[in-house]
């Protein structure tokens, strides 16, 4: 549950591409100020570990972590969250 960003990650991909059931770590959020703040406020910031509960690949995703609880994120949002598979 640490938020420290580690060494330079090797395989980074958008959250929207991650298979259901995988646990990933947020590396970076590439979006506007508004989106970044919104995600940070709910605890989704670089370093956060999240579990992908549901992802249809072309629609919204459902994710969960201990700090934030369960959230559904629109496709547009999921595309902008760069994660690293753990």
């Amino acid at each position, binding site marked *: *549950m*640490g*938020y420290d960003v580690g060494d330079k990650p090797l395989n980074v991909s958008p959250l929207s591409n991650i298979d259901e059931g995988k646990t990933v770590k947020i590396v970076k959020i590439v*979006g*506007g*100020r*508004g*989106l*970044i*703040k*919104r*995600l*940070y*406020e*709910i*605890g989704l*910031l670089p370093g956060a570990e999240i579990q992908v*509960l*549901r992802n*249809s690949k*072309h*629609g*919204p995703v*459902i994710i*969960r972590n*201990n*700090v*934030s*609880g*369960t*959230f*559904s*994120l*629109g*496709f*547009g*949002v999921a595309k*902008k969250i760069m994660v690293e598979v753990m």
Partner: protein
Amino acid sequence: MACHEASTSTKIKVKQQSITVGIIGNPNVGKSALFNKLTKGKAWVANWPGVTVEKKIGKINLGETSFEVVDLPGIYGLTAYSQDEIIARKFLIEERPEIVIQVVNAVNLERNLYLTIQLLEMNLKLIIALNMIDLAEKEGVEIDIHGLINELKIPIIPVVAIKEVGINQLLETMIEQIDRPTVSFKLDYGEEIEGAIEKISKIIDSFMGKLDLGIDSRWLAIRLLENDNDVVEQFRSRGLEEVIRESRRIKDELEARFNKSIEVLMIEKRYHYILSLSKKYIKRKPARESLTIFTNKLDRVLTHPIIGLMIFISVLYLLFKLSFDIVAPLTRLIEIFFSHYIYNLIKTSFLPDIISSLLADAILNGVGIVLIFIPNLLFLFLGISFLEDTGYLARAAFLFDKWMNKLGLSGRAVIPLLIGFGCNVPAIMSTRTLGTDRDRRLAVFMIPFMSCSARLPIYLLFTLAFFKENQIIVILSMYFIGVVIAIITAILFNNLLFKGQTVGYVMDMPPYLIPSAMNVFIKSWERVKSFLIRAGTIIVSLMVVIWVLSITGPEGYLGSEALSVPELLSRSWIASFSKLLEPLFKPFNWDWRIIASLMFGFIAKEVVISSLAVLYSAGEQGLPSVLLSSFTPLTAYSLMAFTLLYTPCMATAATIKTEIGLRYTLLIVSYQLIIAYTITYAILLIGGLII
């Protein structure tokens, strides 16, 4: 500045009478449950100034002191991007409530603490209501409350709002806190940022006389560093461009040094602090009986792309059955009582003809129309509130998000749109659950095209007379036209009128819970009440206007019999207007009687039939045969399409007005009239070519 002085003087007066308490918190933490328990269900609803978001206020009297409790919208932080956040902030900054209670979900305490820190930085007198402490225990979350109290120096009261645990202790703490000084809280942002904060607050201090915001300059400095639009605007409006410029310069300097956005850095600092708190005071053990596991298991099925959809449609079927089929007898009872029993009582009374007609045909009829909605609305809202409080609606929104996105809406909009097929009135009222004003307006523009159940009798009558063979297909084609037009409307207005940006769809998926009956009932009753009072008055007054226009004409008073005698009615104002409009409908081959019936259809769409029956002096049974002799199938079909599209009924229009304002209501009505005219024209043109 005069206006500001006035507000301070009223504030002193309020202070003597009662103490303002703001209730704030993340969405889905049980804020309204706590509000209801605190105020014992005695609350009233007002609108926040300038917006259509509801403001709930309740009063508590405890011996000498009385509290005025205000329920604030659920927010995650004070960024002020969404309307809810702007409202909550405005209230906190401008009204400075004496006490703020933050309702916190003990299960995800860390996420909630982010808002806590922001509130503490505002130097508000904060009490934390640590809600759902029982669930947290079951989840294996152990919170060292005393440790947290010592660290944050604010009272933290464990509560279970639904079960009324800890409410008394919370009330006692509120009284204790009145005379306590506010604790000043200072989060250390690190040397560089602290230096910048100090520099900016010094500049602010030098202008303080001019500023007079009554807020700590450190907070203002932090917000300036975080590029808070609202605070920037406050400075600008007071002519303090210099402060903004200076703070921008300091911010840019800092960002160049860190090579990173300061806002992001500051949020990270806050989270570092939260994580240090979490490490010290929150322990997570394996769950004993976990709601999270339960929720995850159910979600595997309920958010499944196929099975989840099947379940959603079934749930919707149940909701419609509950609120339209089952309450039909109750609706009928109200109808019998009003339109027969009391109606006859007034009509046979010794009152002068015009007065008894005003009472019976206008006012009573109007009141009847309003009251007939009660069973439908109540049951529908009970169902929706129940589903909302269980957490299921968030899943339904997820299922449809992909499709609704294409229309520029979030998944949440699917519920109001589908309810529109039952009745447009509750559909428009339930757009309140859509986050932004932009989404609400867009959904409200689409809803009137959803063919509600009141339009079905019209389709049935015409299809029985003209399309006996293909009745179902013709009726379905009406629903289809409605949906297609709604989609076109969404695309059109999405690009033209409501071009705004959406920050992106981020929605909390609360765990599945059994809702509290009291909460569900209060929520539903509030919605019904607001319809009765706000839309009700509009409906009754419109009914009086229509009545006056029917029993008077260019030659003066016609007598109340005009309502049932075609010869008299044809001399009324409504008939005259219709005749005036006849040239406009020349291409359709519609005579004034159809136009007049459509005008009456504004009362309620099914009234078109009874008006046609009166104007063609046919009686409702004889109407089909009369229609057959004076209509072609094509005119019948075009008339059906026109009634589907032309204008929302009186009750819907009144609801639109109360929900999004008169300007938009007029826009919707005129837009629909144009659409109806165009589509009808197109149908006649294309139909004429084929036949």
